[in-house]
């Protein structure tokens, strides 16, 4: 087991290195110039050139690459080319908002999605099932930014219950929550759709398994069958599926941040992209990719724990 873990972890190292290289190259191949973005339109070409030198953009690519890797090795993400703020500080200030949003979204998804999934599975092909499936299909189909706009129109503009954008101070939990509701709901509804669907199919699978049938035939009370046998066993695939879909959820989280103008990693990424802030951009991309690698690793390892056969693969 330990050998497998070690091997699996070791495998991520070359992948991470390749990810870093790919990010570094992609970022620099893109047209546009951070010096122009930083200086604005009044600057002369001379000033732009001077700034390029100061930013280190005149250095040969390989040297920039070595600097990038060396910095990462030291845990130094560098400074934003535009604002001069250390990227670590930028990320540090927005990351709590992103994590909070994602966590709230996943939480809503599990709290509402799991029971809904069980219910639809139990009422298979009846009205409740159709409603549940329609809802989850709609949730899987709706782009996060559009759902966000609809919620905004209803709750902020029509009813005026919630603020439209931004994020509350962490120092003021109530205000913080107040700002979180709509974005979390946006992400949460989409996540609910995923979880409902996964729970339903996992439950259907397990309800068809022999041991559940046996339990039923033994005359156990239906509710007990469902909870002690079926749902528990369904939980494992559900959780792993949540893990995998968390990756797909990243895109929705980015769009939610954009549409609600919340400070967050996704908006930081798009902002850095627009201003060609190479240094910030490459770090943010690496963080996202690193997150995916980590998630994959955890998912893989958890499979290994759940199903011992996988270890010997």
């Amino acid at each position, binding site marked *: 087991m330990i050998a497998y873990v070690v091997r699996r972890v070791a495998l991520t190292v070359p992948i991470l290195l390749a990810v870093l290289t790919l990010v570094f190259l992609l970022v620099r191949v893109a047209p546009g110039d951070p010096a122009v973005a930083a200086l604005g339109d*009044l*600057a*002369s070409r*001379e000033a732009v050139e001077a700034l390029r030198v100061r930013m280190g953009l005149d250095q040969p690519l390989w040297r920039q690459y070595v600097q990038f890797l060396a910095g990462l090795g030291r845990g130094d993400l560098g400074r934003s080319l535009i604002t001069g703020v250390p990227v670590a500080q930028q990320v540090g200030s927005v990351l709590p908002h992103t994590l909070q949003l994602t966590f709230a979204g996943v939480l809503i998804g599990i709290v509402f999605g799991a029971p809904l999934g069980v219910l639809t599975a139990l009422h298979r092909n009846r009205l409740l099932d159709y409603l549940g499936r329609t809802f989850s299909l709609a949730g899987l189909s709706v782009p996060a930014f559009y759902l966000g706009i609809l919620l*905004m129109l209803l709750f902020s503009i029509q009813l005026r219950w919630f603020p439209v954008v*931004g994020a509350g101070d962490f120092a003021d939990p109530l205000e913080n929550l107040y700002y979180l509701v709509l974005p979390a709901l946006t992400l949460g509804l989409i996540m609910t759709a995923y979880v409902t669907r996964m729970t339903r199919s996992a439950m259907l699978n397990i309800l068809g398994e022999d041991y559940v049938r046996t339990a039923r035939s033994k005359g156990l009370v239906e509710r007990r069958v469902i909870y002690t046998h079926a749902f528990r066993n369904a939980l494992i695939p559900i959780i792993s599926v949540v893990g995998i879909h968390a990756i797909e959820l990243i895109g929705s989280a980015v769009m939610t941040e954009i549409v609600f103008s919340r400070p967050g990693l996704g908006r930081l990424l798009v902002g850095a992209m627009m201003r060609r802030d190479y240094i910030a951009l490459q770090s943010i991309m690496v963080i996202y990719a690193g997150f995916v690698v980590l998630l994959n690793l955890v998912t893989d390892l958890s499979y290994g724990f759940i199903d011992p056969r996988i270890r010997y693969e």
Partner: protein
Amino acid sequence: MKTVLSLFCTVLLVGSIAWGVELAERQLLRIAFDAGDLSTLDPHFAAATMDRGVVDMIYNGLVRYRPGNIDPEYIEPDLAERWTVSEDGLTWMFYLREGVYFHPFPGYPDGYELTADDVVYSLEKAADPQRSGYSGMYGGMSFEALDEYTVRITLAEPESPLLFLPKVADYSGGFIVSKRALEENGLDWFRSNPVGTGPFAFAEYRPMDRVVLVRNERYFRGAPVLEQVEIRYMPDLSARELGLRRGELHLIEGLREQPWVEKVEGLPEDLAVDVFGPGETHVVHFNTRVPPLDDVRVRQALAYAISREELMVFIGERVTQPLYSPVPEFLAGGLTREQAEARGLLYEVDRDKARALLAEAGYPDGFGVDVIITEMASYLSPTQAIQAQLTHVGIAKDLRVVEHSTFHSLIRDDLSAMVHYECWRPNADVFLTHFYHSASRVVYGERPITNFSHFYQADYPIERARVALDPEEQTGWWKEAQFRILEDMAAYPLYILGFVYARQPELDYVHDLVAIAALYPQITEKTRILAGS
């Protein structure tokens, strides 16, 4: 008599209670700019609107524009109490105010007193292309501290006060920064930790969210009324608007279109909308090197195909003013409608004439032209409207929309046949030099800036105007330069787009909003929030 007097006194008393100002309890001002984040708070790099505003509250210049008014006529003392200029116009002496203190920064919990040393350091920084985006304005100048409170600036060529004073005013390179803060902490630190002498001191920056400024109790004009100013970065208009309507914000950057102005004025919340100058000129520059635009008849045809009036209806007459020459008419050297018309250079829409000119140039069926444009609404909207207008004479304008910084890179690489440009420049010289002097030609010039037309026929008048000390002679040369530009139709001036902000009526700037160099309504030490009605 006595009763009349007492009645008069009563009226006065009642009047002063009614008219006297009652301040709101909390003097916390919240502004929202149309931006996702700041770019830089180094005043010598700050160019974008959202940065200029913040920098304006933190820093001072040697001299300053009167709050709310950009007219160089009203330039008044700021950090310098007074100044003199030698007769040859080459040597300027500035005598500094004593007892001006910089904001606190690490190692200096009480700041320190500003001296000539800081001023010289600051102006040298502004003149250094490595450390400033405005170095071009300070070429050939040298700066010396004669004693603690005296600064001498020596020019290579004489400049009229009209051209020189804005360079040391509270605008762009003229802002005075703290030498010690910069030397001890470095430029990178300084970019997001500004240290100045202005009414508000920097307190906090949260990326993608806000900047917080606090009252500078030791401000040399007296402690500001406002305790704190919060600048929010909110790129979404609906969000800013709702924030204002809900009372969470006091002042927001609006949409520079008339329908929006009218909508906000019609809202039940009783909000005020300010439309003010100087605004930004909108000009279409034609690339005179690219066929078929290398033919003057084709460029004139384009000009006759565009309807300035229709564009202004589209954007709205309350937020635009017609522009008849590259330099706006309210600046010295700008052309009025009559002056342009007298020379036959008005180019009012005349599509038959446009078609005739096209036929004459050998394009009876029109042609296609590739144009690069930014996705920013104030550029993109009129560009699309012009695109629709040009189809009437058979010209197909193919747009390539890119994001804003890429747009600026690409047009500077001479890649667009037509360049729609929105900008504000402090005076006629900068407008004309940057856009129409041969040295400024993109790619090919000696100091390429923004001459997208590759125009070179006005070098002589532009240069003569620059060194002319007599105002009348100076404006004469500037006008001559513009006649040449319009005759050759190197660029078609469209309109000046004003700035639009909406606010709570309780927010009182104290100054009148006419035109502001910092391109926002300007918050000073006097700005206050009145008690709500």
